[in-house]
């Protein structure tokens, strides 16, 4: 072997040795603490860093799982086995994550809710309308129809229906809660997707005012509360569902004059009837021919 090669080998070997030594020291001094759980979860993941979970990589996924913002079964690559393993590490059940969706708890659309005798001028956003006597609807609690919730939804899972109320598309909704935060009147709430009955009103107005202001307001008459065995309570002139005690069977829906408490589908169907949007109905008919309004 000629000298040149030896020199090269010596140089590189030496550099490698020195570098490794420096790193060894650095490693000792610089070791970063981390939540051991995150590391464990990370190890349990496939490590493909494919991004199919919607996170930056497996490590990010692990952080999010530990943080609780993503469900253990969120990794499509790893499948059920990984999900179980991760869930076991976290001490929670893998497949029990319930789908949470946003629900709009107001039915006072352009037709149902009285409008003021004024024309509002200014930015058409709920947050700003709320500052100027609350936009153009009379109700101080209801949806103003400015569409702030629509704007903030990054999943396009919410859109403004024809009568000015937002509609949530369950399939696209991830329950992220952005719309809940965006609504200045706290009309939108997150609920498990399988809940069917809601009180579609947030108005604390006195009965007389609420009747004047909106056809479908909860007047606070208390009929549902009396029949529900604690499933619904009256709070400051508004019926509020107590979900742990709630049994829809006990609710006398036909007694509610304004249908403020009703099934989600009824609320939607009425909205459909109320609007003359032929396209929407045609769409409904296309997808489900036997269901014609």
């Amino acid at each position, binding site marked *: 072997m000629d000298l040149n090669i030896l020199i090269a080998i010596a140089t590189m070997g030496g550099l490698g040795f020195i570098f490794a030594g420096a790193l060894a020291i650095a490693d000792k001094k610089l070791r970063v603490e981390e939540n051991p759980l995150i590391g464990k979860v990370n190890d349990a993941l496939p490590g493909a860093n494919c991004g199919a979970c919607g996170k930056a990589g497996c490590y990010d996924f692990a952080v999010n799982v530990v943080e609780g913002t993503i469900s253990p079964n969120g990794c499509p690559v790893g499948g059920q086995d990984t999900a179980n393993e991760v869930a076991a590490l976290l001490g929670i059940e893998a497949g029990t994550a319930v789908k949470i969706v946003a629900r709009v708890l107001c039915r006072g659309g352009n037709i149902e809710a009285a409008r003021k005798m004024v024309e509002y001028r200014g930015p058409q956003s709920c947050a*700003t309308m709320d500052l100027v*006597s609350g936009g153009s609807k009379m109700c101080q609690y209801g949806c103003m129809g400015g569409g702030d919730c629509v704007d903030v939804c990054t999943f396009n899972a919410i859109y403004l229906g024809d009568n000015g109320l937002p509609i949530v598309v369950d399939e696209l909704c991830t329950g992220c809660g952005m719309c809940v935060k965006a609504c200045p009147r706290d009309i939108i709430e997150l609920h498990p997707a399988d809940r069917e009955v809601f009180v579609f009103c947030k108005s604390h107005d006195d009965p007389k005012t609420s009747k004047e202001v909106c056809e479908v307001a909860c007047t606070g008459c208390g009929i549902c509360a009396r029949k529900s065995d604690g499933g619904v309570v009256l709070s400051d002139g508004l019926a509020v569902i107590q979900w742990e005690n709630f049994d829809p069977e006990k609710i006398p829906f036909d007694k509610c004059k304004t249908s403020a408490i009703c099934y989600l589908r009824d609320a939607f169907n009425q909205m459909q009837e109320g609007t003359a949007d032929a396209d929407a109905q045609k769409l409904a008919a296309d997808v489900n021919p036997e269901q014609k309004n």
Partner: protein
Amino acid sequence: MIFKTFPGGVHPPEEKELSEHCAFERMPAPSIVILPLSQHLGKQARPLVEKRAVVAEGQVVAEADGFISAPVHSPITGTVKSIGRESHSSGYAREALVIVPTEAKEGETLPEPQRLPALDPAIISVADIRARVKEAGIVGQGGAAFPTFVKLTPPEGKQIDTVILNGCECEPYLTRDDRFMIERPDAIISGLQLIMRALGVSKGVVGIESNKPQAIASMESAVAGQPDLSVCALQTKYPQGAEKMLIKAVNGREVPPGKLPLDVGVVIQNIGTAIAIHDAIAHGEPSITAALTVTGRGIRNPKNLIVPVGTPLSEVIAYCGGLTEDAAKVVVGGPMMGVAQHDLDAPVMKATSGIVILTQDEVRRQEETACLRCGKCIDACPLHLLPTRLARLAQLGMIEEAERLNITTCMECGSCAFICPANIPLVQWLRLGKQRVVHMQRNR
């Protein structure tokens, strides 16, 4: 002549000639009185009467609830029709008593109007001044409606050296203070002296904008011969009448953000407040009337009126001949900071200083366009904020950044939105930003 002023500000059209020559008229009792329980800043008053109770003019119908609060007196003799949520000139329904005048039924006598005992302003004690101001339910007439009694009771240890009476009336259109200064200079001076006595201050200044020469003359002759009182003529510029701006203009002091005029040794009272204090002490009158200007090109007969508190706006408007055909907007307060009304059932309140009815032409706004970053709003902002940036931050929800840029300092004077060539509703966005910042701060 060079008048004192502050840096920044704008020059909106003054339009005072509509009503500046109309002497005050006293409006007759209305057919109904809507008496909001919160006509002041602070906690709303607690009602003392039940539905269907008969109340006398001047009777206390709701008492102050807490330190920063004020009692409410009935402006008419009548029956309480209801207690509930009613229209309010803030735009949001509030708790209010509704009182209708009652005819005396047979065998009954209506209660006599009540007045407080008159006191001699010359010899009254400090404690009595404060007590009377509180009892009479006087609130600041400048717009914020801060209970006056609180302002006359400064915390221990604050050195106050000057009382400034705010006669700027920088809001366009309004002429109430102008008229007061012309018609009742002596009552104003008496009120000022009472305030000075209550605060133990020896220096009183009346600040008046240069566009009210008559008022300046009137006040100057009223203070003549009193070395501790003076009149200070100021440049006509909006918002000269804002507390901080007025102090800056009159004695050059700057009130730091988050501090009160008290902290720089100054107390500011409105002309109207001074008169109310004088009336409450010298004549025992509680705060049951509001002096206001009804003006604008949208009203048939602009007037300066003295109106019973609680009178619905619609009755006031009707009294002034009603709206014209092209009336477009009814604003309670001045056109720069006042609130547009959506419901003319809203009542006149203690601190209502004017009703301005603008016509289509006056309110026609150009379409909103993109911000050009021309910086006019920054030049105009009397508090040296960056309105355009703050508005954009508020719009985009970048609340922390807005907080860092002191959005909460904004007093919503509207100079920025007035001057903005792009017609951006800056005030609305700023208000939203402030609301969100406060919300965030509360969440901490």
